[in-house]
């Protein structure tokens, strides 16, 4: 019998995860820093990573329409920021991002790797008007490491930069900058150039960022809808060639973008994370209110 829940995806040969959040959190959790110092302290960093907005299971409920539910049930995974934001070109404010992660390791010889999800996004309807401009960016990526390198492979939709709609896709590939530059001009940060581009790497007022490259001709409307309490489920697919260490393509809604010209940035391996394969999802705020990313379901597959 056809499983319509899976039929809306295009998985590669081997499905690693099919996470429908009507079944619970499915192993997705909040990203936190490493609590390894005295009194469970964390290392100093220009980016405060203990305050990101906690994730939850959402019924998609709004003040006028009531319960929206998810694409084929009631519950979705909700990423919710806190009501804070810095200007785009500054380090993200504590709590201005919500970030979900699932912690896996590789189990077969690498070939292609794919991230798919059905999702929706909106702002908290805490004031009148239409608030599309308050959502800065959201994205998906893999944080992975083999014996040779650690890589961040991902894309983000840059929706708004300091309140101005941009609506373009970017791919994770770091500019040739120093580790000091990568940490907004600070020395001794845990992070190296190429690691955690969700919040590291300088950003510039025109939307450029040291952690990303714009995908050519990628301005795209995503059906935000006409009111903050109406959400439409959207399809996203990112395919990566692990063997070639090269991006393949991005599909957003019905449009496919060739990413063959892009490569992720190699970082010398970190200790104790060989074989790491962590899919991640995040959303970043552009204003002083909460914004939400709802994820109906996720498929991670390989061939």
């Amino acid at each position: 019998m056809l499983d319509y829940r899976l039929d809306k995806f295009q998985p590669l040969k081997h499905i690693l995860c099919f996470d429908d959040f009507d079944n619970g959190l499915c192993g997705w959790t909040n990203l936190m820093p490493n609590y390894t110092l005295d009194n469970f302290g964390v290392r100093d960093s220009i980016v405060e990573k203990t305050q990101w907005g906690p994730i939850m299971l959402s019924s998609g409920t709004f003040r006028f329409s009531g319960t929206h539910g998810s694409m084929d049930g009631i519950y979705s995974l909700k990423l919710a920021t806190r009501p804070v934001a810095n200007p785009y070109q500054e380090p993200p404010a504590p709590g201005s991002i919500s970030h979900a992660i699932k912690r896996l390791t590789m189990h077969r010889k690498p070939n292609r790797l794919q991230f798919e999800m059905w999702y929706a996004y909106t702002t908290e309807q805490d004031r009148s008007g239409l608030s599309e401009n308050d959502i800065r960016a959201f994205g998906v990526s893999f944080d992975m490491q083999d014996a040779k390198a650690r890589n961040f492979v991902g894309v983000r939709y840059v929706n708004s930069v300091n309140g101005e709609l941009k609506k373009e896709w970017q791919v994770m590939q770091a500019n040739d900058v120093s580790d000091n530059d990568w940490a907004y001009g600070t020395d001794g940060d845990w992070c190296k150039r190429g690691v955690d581009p969700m919040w590291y790497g300088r950003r510039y007022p025109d939307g450029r960022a040291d952690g990303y490259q714009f995908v050519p001709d990628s301005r795209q409307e995503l059906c935000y809808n006409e009111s903050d309490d109406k959400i439409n489920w959207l399809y996203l697919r990112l395919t990566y060639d692990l063997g070639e260490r090269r991006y393949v393509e991005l599909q957003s809604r019905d449009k496919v973008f060739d990413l063959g010209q892009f490569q992720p940035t190699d970082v010398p391996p970190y200790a104790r994370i060989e074989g790491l394969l962590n899919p991640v999802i995040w959303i970043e705020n552009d204003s002083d209110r909460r914004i939400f990313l709802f994820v109906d379901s996720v498929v991670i597959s390989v061939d």
Partner: protein
Amino acid sequence: MRQFQTSTLEQRKTFDTDFETHPLEVAWASEAIFFVDVEQLDEGSGSLHLKVQISVDGVNWLDEGTIFEPIRGKERAFRRVSHFGGWLRLKGELLESGSLYKATIHLVIKE
């Protein structure tokens, strides 16, 4: 198996004014416990008052009726709640100016 989630709503966060915790959607759950771990950082006598709030939409909030005993010094405490609809948060109030508290607040929810 019953669904379960522990969420760290606020982590080692310092408060010098009234506050509300990160709103958590709890529609799938039928029981919840707020755990608070609080440390007073000022030398004054102002206490921290915490109460449970519920909401129809995550934006407009009402007192649920459950309150914590006023907190002073260093304390750990919890309160159980049930039959709460779709959302839960804590409201924190500092009645005296100059008060300064550090708090970690967990919400533990179960189907």
